């Protein structure tokens, strides 16, 4: 389970996150929704130890991510871009990530096949399309067969086939018992994928519940979202 307890983040005089508290549970896909700049990525970065909270804590099964000795077996994360140096090949990138977790090269080949970039494994990452870069990031996230998956805007840069693939993939991962947390600003993409929804606006959580609870009496998640955020798009 991924737990956020009263997380606050201040940069300079600006509060980026205020009292962020929610859970992402095993066996469920939790959608973390919000407009651009709402604080979704900052929240995920704090969970992954990339940024430090001003106060509060984000925990992975009760432990801080930075204290995990086998982090890649706990969480696989796909943030923006490929997360790979542009002059290294995709295969070389996955190999160093695998070595950090004590995983052999055979698993790298499995993942290159799984995400569909085996043919491009020996090409430099700089030659990859946006979608191929996302697939490479996904392969790195899955290397150690983690118990939880964290995705920041997972469908960005993917073609319709890729979007459908990732949607089915995420559902399968949750059905297999994994905790899946994904952020997005695309309501329509999320509505067909998530079990639980957390909505963040201006660095604060404004809704947290199951898809049905958050949608409430609104026609769909998108309408509920715009009603919650008070955006002009509400109708």
């Amino acid at each position, binding site marked *: 389970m991924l737990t956020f307890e009263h997380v606050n983040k201040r940069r300079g005089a600006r509060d980026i996150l205020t009292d962020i508290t929610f859970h992402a549970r095993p066996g469920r896909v939790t959608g973390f929704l919000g407009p651009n700049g709402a604080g979704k990525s900052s929240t995920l970065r704090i969970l*992954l130890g990339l940024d430090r909270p001003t106060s509060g804590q984000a925990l992975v099964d009760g432990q801080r991510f930075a204290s995990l000795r086998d982090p890649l*077996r706990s*969480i696989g994360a796909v943030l923006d871009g490929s997360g790979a140096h542009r002059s290294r090949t995709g295969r070389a990138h996955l190999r160093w990530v695998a*070595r950090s977790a*004590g995983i052999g090269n055979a698993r790298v080949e499995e993942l290159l096949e799984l995400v569909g970039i085996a043919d491009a494994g020996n090409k430099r990452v700089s030659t990859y399309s946006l979608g191929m870069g996302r697939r490479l990031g996904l392969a790195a996230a899955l290397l150690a067969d983690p118990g939880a998956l964290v995705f920041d805007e997972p469908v960005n840069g993917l073609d319709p086939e890729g979007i459908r693939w990732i949607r089915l993939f995420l559902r399968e991962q949750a059905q297999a018992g*994994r905790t899946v947390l994904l952020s997005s600003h695309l309501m329509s993409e999320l509505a067909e994928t998530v079990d639980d929804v957390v909505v963040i606006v201006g660095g604060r959580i404004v809704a947290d519940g199951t898809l049905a609870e958050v949608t409430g009496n609104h026609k769909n998640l998108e309408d509920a979202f715009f009603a919650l955020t008070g955006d002009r798009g509400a109708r």
Partner: protein
Amino acid sequence: MTTTTDFRTPATAFTDAVRAEASKLWSLPATWLVLGGTLALTIVLSIAFGTSANIGPDQTVNILDYGVTAVTWTQCGFFLLGVIASTSEYIGGQIRTTLIAIPDRITWRLAATVALVPITFAAALLIVATSITTILLTTGVPIAEADLDVAARIIPSAAGYLTLMAVLSSALGLLIRKAIPAAAILLVYLLILSPLLQGQNWYFLPDIASYTLWFASVPDTAPPAIASWAVVLAWTLGLLIPSIIIANRRDT
């Protein structure tokens, strides 16, 4: 699917981190471009110095001093190697992947340093030995005339110094996080300031202190070798330790 149970001992986790960092260095094309370029430039400069050297029976300069002269210039390559090793983390968002794979930042930096040392030391041994060999071949001085005991001292000493400077440069690169400014600071010092300071006997500077370790002829005013090593090590740790502390505290 796995759980958050810790499978690895701390020692195993650290060993895996070192292997990952070594793999990163090994698979980075810039590593080989810099080392290959440094080797090639060392050979070219040694040929140039060898052909212009006035080697004769009344020659008082030790041939080994000619042998390492090219390295005083091409040591820049080892500074660049250190800078590239750390600043390459900030290209393509690799730093995020690194910190998700090795989230304990002290472990990460120690592993990166441990991985950098053997690759740099081996390359430095090769380049210094090549520099001396090139001078011997160019000047036609038989190897029997070179003092092999002194050569056996200065080659590993030079390699040790170059390795520590790569570690120092890596620390500076980590602090600045951008390759060009970090490289510019180091190159301006090495190529402009340091040559101007050569006559000052400022042995508290790392390169000037190190020349007493890897030149055959040592000035009378030079400090003992242990003091020179202490200066080089102090500069290295003086940048390495703050870089680890700051990397451990800051957001990425």
